[in-house]
């Protein structure tokens, strides 16, 4: 029971907030529209009919009478607005609405006529005038109330459309994420098998061949050794790069380990600088703001692409990679935002890396954007390109 109540509570709270907001809309529209009508009607009465026969002091200042009339109208409007707010007409079906509006119109008309009589703005002797004043108040009350209900309906429809759209977006993102994590799982499985049992089988085969090579005459042993060397190349290069393309195994030890492994594979002739704010990264993990494997792999892919651009096309001899954690960029009212991982790659190559329409960097930028991150390319102070990827923690 209690868990059901807890589960239902966010929806119930939302429903309650919506009702309150609708009631306030009704109140606001009735009050503003009613006030405008009230002021205009009083002013018009003064202009058209003069101060009026039923003024308490016929020789009195027209302005004093105008102010009194306006005050009476505003009091009527206030009553109508409060009653309209309390009526809940905006939540009712058509008959309920008509009933509420009619009741409101009658109350408004009676109230206004009664107050005008009390202040001597009308006299019972002039019954047609009393009916006319009460009737006009009733008409204005029903018009502003109808307007308020219609405005509230329109706002509600807009709100529902926006919510449906947001839900749709969330569903789409969730579907995409689950597809991606399933893809990642399969990739990992295949890569593990290539990395583990297939590589092992190669090692064992090579060892067995070596054993045979030791027992056979020299010419055959030579041939076998050549085969063993080819097997080693196949294992260490072909199978391994296949496995790596599917899934960077080092990501299991975190994004820093995977980046370090990537840089460690670079030829010795390339100068490498790598800085990772490991203390803050570890802290982030501690507070549950870790990157997670999917996002971690994305950053590793950015570094791979940047490296491959720099080395293959840019002829770089010096690369610099910095992984840091930027503080959250949330506004005060929004929920506490996740910290943002920031990966900056720079090289001293010929530069000119561009994101383009379809290239590797464009694809990575799209994927980063999916998680609310981004990618940009600028010239680097090292002389080549500077590629910066930003990615919020999970």
């Amino acid at each position, binding site marked *: 029971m209690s868990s059901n109540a807890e589960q239902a509570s966010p929806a119930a709270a939302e429903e309650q907030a919506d009702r309150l907001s609708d009631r306030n809309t009704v109140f606001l529209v009735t009050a503003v529209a009613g006030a405008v009508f009230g002021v205009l009607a009083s002013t018009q009465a003064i202009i058209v009919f003069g101060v009026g026969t039923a003024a308490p002091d016929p020789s009195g200042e027209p302005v004093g009478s105008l102010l009194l009339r306006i005050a009476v109208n505003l009091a009527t409007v206030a009553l109508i607005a409060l009653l309209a707010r309390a009526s809940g007409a905006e939540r009712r079906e058509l008959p309920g609405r008509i009933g509420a509006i009619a009741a409101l119109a009658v109350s408004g008309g009676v109230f206004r006529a009664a107050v005008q009589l009390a202040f001597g703005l009308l006299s019972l002797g002039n019954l047609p005038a009393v009916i006319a004043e009460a009737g006009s108040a009733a008409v204005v009350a029903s018009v502003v109330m109808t307007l308020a209900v219609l405005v509230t309906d329109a706002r509600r429809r807009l709100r529902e459309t926006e919510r449906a759209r947001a839900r749709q977006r969330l569903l789409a993102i969730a579907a995409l994420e689950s597809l991606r994590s399933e893809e990642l799982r399969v990739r990992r499985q295949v890569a593990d098998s290539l990395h*583990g049992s297939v590589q092992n*089988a190669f090692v064992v085969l090579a060892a067995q061949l070596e054993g045979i090579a030791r027992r056979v005459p020299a010419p055959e042993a030579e041939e076998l050794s050549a085969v063993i060397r080819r097997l080693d190349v196949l294992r260490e290069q072909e199978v391994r790069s296949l496995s790596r393309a599917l899934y960077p195994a080092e990501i299991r030890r975190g994004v820093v380990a995977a980046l370090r492994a990537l840089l*460690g594979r670079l*030829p010795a002739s390339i*100068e490498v600088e790598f800085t990772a704010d490991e203390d803050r990264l570890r802290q982030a993990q501690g507070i549950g703001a870790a990157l997670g494997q999917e996002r971690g792999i994305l950053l590793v892919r950015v570094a791979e692409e940047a490296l491959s651009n720099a080395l293959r096309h840019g002829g770089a001899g010096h690369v610099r990679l910095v992984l840091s954690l930027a503080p959250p960029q949330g506004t005060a009212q929004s929920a506490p935002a996740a910290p943002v991982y920031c990966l900056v790659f720079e090289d001293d190559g010929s530069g000119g890396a561009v994101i383009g329409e379809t290239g590797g960097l464009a694809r990575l930028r799209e994927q980063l954007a999916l998680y609310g991150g981004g990618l940009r390319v600028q010239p680097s102070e090292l002389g080549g390109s500077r590629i910066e990827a930003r990615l919020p923690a999970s």
Partner: protein
Amino acid sequence: MDEDGSVGRARIRLGIVEDQPLYRQMLTTLLDSVSDLTVVASAGGVAEADASLDASGLDVALLDIQLGDGDGIELGRRLRAANPELGIVLLSAVDAMHTLLEIPRGELRAWSYLSKSSALSAPALVAAIRATAQGRTALDPALLQTRRPRRGSVVETLGDRQREVLALLAQGLSNTAIAERMGIAPRTVDNHLNAVYAALGLRADGLRNPRVEAAIRYLEETGVIER
């Protein structure tokens, strides 16, 4: 205590954790044929090792880095926590020597690394196990041969002899063995090593072993030769 002595006198007790039965069999056969080594326990994965391997009964554990059900490095750290004197030799079918860099520096004493190909050659394997049992870190000699100091690194600024001494240290050789290998006096090896430690900014402060640190720095500051 008497751990150094016991390593010298008694046989080195080994545990093997490897998920490929055939490879595990080959290793066991190879190691049992060496007089001062004995395989006392083996397991096919992390779960089995956690359940059945008694770290206190081992001198050196040989662990596949990538086990079917988990991570050899994390297993090694657990075993080391259970027995601080335990030496660990990591094995991997691919060149994953850089994974040593992910182990906290303070824990790195007697962590060694061999490729599975090298591990099936008895001299390399036995040398690595003996070095590890004595608290040194031994990196795969065949893989080290494919590495050169990285451009812009401190190791690149070392003299040729200093670099040679450092490369042999990284293979797990003792100073005497380095002296023999280079045909120089042990005193000279000491001098070269002191210069290397100074260049790398390492000191023997009791907390960290400069020998282990130097081996790891060598790994960190070298890269593969372009093919």
